[in-house]
């Protein structure tokens, strides 16, 4: 019996042009950092070195702040319409250079080109378009008096959706009249650097957007700087708590978008085949490197076997491999560190008593890879049921009654997102009312739109990004 194997269909990387070294971007241009240290950024699918970027230090952060102050002087005098035009132009350029950005994102971060091309980049452009259109009509956004921009905003973003997180942060901040100092993740600085080039191209006034690359120490320096009026952070709950503590002595605006351990609840009256798709998408999209990933399958017991059989069959068709291959579904794990974390938790899951299923696939020799994994016969007390794994690993828990489904789902310090699968409308609304999560997806998952507010309850953070409500993250109420 002849199997039909798909031939490689590799997206060419000749479209990107990566320099050997990059400095920081302040005063509207790239320049050498004060720090003489550099960090290498590698491609996690091949481990080849892509470039070296500056490891910004305190003095670099200080320069960035001075640059931002100058930028603010210009930016605050411009009308909303003028700000809107800059953002529209950026949106257009991003659209035009989408392919280039997508390839760069895939190289630097390891996610499949299919995702960076079809999801990340369109969303990035959409975010800039959406927030551009708020810049000249902020007076209509809220019927509240005295909302004003913070001024200088420090933003720290993660490695899982580098450019997308940049757009979620930078677009609303600039639209509302703030200026930005951005610190991208250590392992994924390259698309932020290319974005800085676009800022030059549209003639964004110097100092409005500033970029300082580096590691945790760079972020810490940013957080400590006394002239920053607002910090927006997306990353792990641990670091989020650190930032909240570090800024305790100041009157500073703070929004945190942290980790999650979302429950994807499947009731027995769900559209099963679509629920399987939703569960698969919920945990295997972007290799599970998603804060709102549906990492707990909370499944009604009476459909357990039928559902798990379908789920395992569906998982088997996931293609793991070269992220630049257009047919790849699951790319590389972002770093050796992350791979080690995932491996350790999964091993622990087996030891604790969970039944493990992993798909039958060949993993490449070089790079960081993990097979799509499903745990069944897991208990709510296992570490794999409670801790954020941040990888392609799904843990199954069962429930019998709707009340139990709620209890299990809320039994976590996290509260970012949740999924509800049932064809009964009233049950969706009843359940949504009771779930402690900031984003609830009913009969769908991982849906994002610039107009739709995103953010968590409890230790998944506070503040919202996106939509009318997201503007409040960047507008301070004057007392």
């Amino acid at each position: 019996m002849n199997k039909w194997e798909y031939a490689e269909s590799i997206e060419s990387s000749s479209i990107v042009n990566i320099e050997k070294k990059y400095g920081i971007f302040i005063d509207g241009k790239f320049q050498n950092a004060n720090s003489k240290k550099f960090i290498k950024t590698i491609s996690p699918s091949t481990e080849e070195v892509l470039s070296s970027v500056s490891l910004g230090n305190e003095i670099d952060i200080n320069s960035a702040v001075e640059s931002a102050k100058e930028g603010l002087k210009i930016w605050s005098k411009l009308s909303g319409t003028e700000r809107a035009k800059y953002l529209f132009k950026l949106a257009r350029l991003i659209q035009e250079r989408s392919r280039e950005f997508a390839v760069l994102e895939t190289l630097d971060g390891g996610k499949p080109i299919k995702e960076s091309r079809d999801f990340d980049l369109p969303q990035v452009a959409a975010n800039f378009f959406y927030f551009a259109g708020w810049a000249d009509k902020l007076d209509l956004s809220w019927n509240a008096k005295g909302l004003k921009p913070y001024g200088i905003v420090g933003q720290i973003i993660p490695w899982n959706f580098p450019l997308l997180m940049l757009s979620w942060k930078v677009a609303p901040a600039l639209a509302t009249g703030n200026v930005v100092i951005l610190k991208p993740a250590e392992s994924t600085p390259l698309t932020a650097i290319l974005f800085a080039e676009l800022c030059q191209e549209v003639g964004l006034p110097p100092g409005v957007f500033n970029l300082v690359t580096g590691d945790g120490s760079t972020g810490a320096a940013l957080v400590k700087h006394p002239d920053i009026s607002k910090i927006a952070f997306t990353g792990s709950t641990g670091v989020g708590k650190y930032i909240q503590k570090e800024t305790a002595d100041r009157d500073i605006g703070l929004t945190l978008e942290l980790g999650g351990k979302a429950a994807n609840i499947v009731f027995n009256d769900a559209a099963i085949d679509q629920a399987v798709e939703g569960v698969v998408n919920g945990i295997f999209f972007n290799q599970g490197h998603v804060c709102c990933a549906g990492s707990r399958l909370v499944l009604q017991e009476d459909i357990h076997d039928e559902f798990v059989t379908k789920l395992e069959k569906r998982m088997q068709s996931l293609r793991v491999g070269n992220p630049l291959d257009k047919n790849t579904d699951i790319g590389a794990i972002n770093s050796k560190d992350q791979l080690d974390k995932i491996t350790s938790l999964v091993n622990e899951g087996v030891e604790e008593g969970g039944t493990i299923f992993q798909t039958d696939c060949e993993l490449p020799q070089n790079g960081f890879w993990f097979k799509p994994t499903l745990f069944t016969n897991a208990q709510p007390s296992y570490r794999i049921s409670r801790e954020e794994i941040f990888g392609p690993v799904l843990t199954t828990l069962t429930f019998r009654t709707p009340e139990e489904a709620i209890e299990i789902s809320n039994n976590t310090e996290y509260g970012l997102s949740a999924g509800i699968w049932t064809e009964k409308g009233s049950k969706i609304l009843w359940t949504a009312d009771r779930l402690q999560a900031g984003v609830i997806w009913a009969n769908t998952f991982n849906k994002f739109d610039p107009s739709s507010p995103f953010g968590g309850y409890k230790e998944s953070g506070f503040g919202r990004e996106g939509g009318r409500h997201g503007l409040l993250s960047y507008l301070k109420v004057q007392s």
Partner: protein
Amino acid sequence: MSLTKEAQNILNWSDTVELIDNLRVDEVGLKERVASLATRSIKKDSKLQALNYIISMCDLTTLEGEDTEGKIGQMTAKAIRPDPSNDEVPSVAAVCVYPALVSKAKKMTQNSNVKVASVSSYFPSGQAPLESKILDTQFAIDEGADEIDIVINRKAFFEGDYRKMYDEIVALKEVCKSVHLKTILEVGELRTYENIKKASLISLAAGSDFIKTSTGKISNGSSREACYLMAKAVWDYKTVTGFKAGIKVAGGIRDSKDAIRYLVIVNEELGSEWLNPDYFRFGASSLVDDVLKQIKKLKTNAYQSSYYFPRG
């Protein structure tokens, strides 16, 4: 639910009722999955393999009021040898004609592996009593048809008389005996995904060997969403009864790119076991020409014109 298989692959009515109770399909989710399958990039060897599959799975079709024996002569010759300039191109699976042309088609294909399929049961509308449909079908079989393509009784379906719809197919399968039976759902009329899934399962339970999307006679023909749904029905039916049914897509599949997308759905949802003429067919006429052009392009690296390939 534990079900036992009865005669051949027929499920009794009460088990069928259980199968079609509470069918739930989410339209948006389904469309997304089908759209995502369409992003597969099929190149080089895998493309050539797919193109050859498509030819070998085609039912070259002519179902026109103006069909004559002369027309059948042309089409069957093309069916047997689609590209005279390239021996590697396989024959198609079958030709599909009206009952009156079956004996001519049979005569023209007797020295080949190309089967003769005939439509019947008052194709395309099915708006006639069961007796007429049985006569229609018996005639085609007597003339030598290897395969029969019937239409479901949509009148009964939309009136909620699923039992009647089921009984008709059972009766027609009885006429067919070992002749391969394909049951056309006419998905363009059924419209909703629940309807398509329900009609699929009833047709399978009633003894169909294949379920088929469309007659090709209305403007809404096949769709990849319908194919995906039917694949799900075939899989579920196999899980319950062990019987492996086939799928035929027809109506509106004009080019290779689209046809390859259908193959991707079958490949990833059902598996490579379904990628042969015994389990998957394309009902087509102009599709074959486009595939031949694509095959030639892969070999010569030049875009082709249709005048290089014979008329059928």
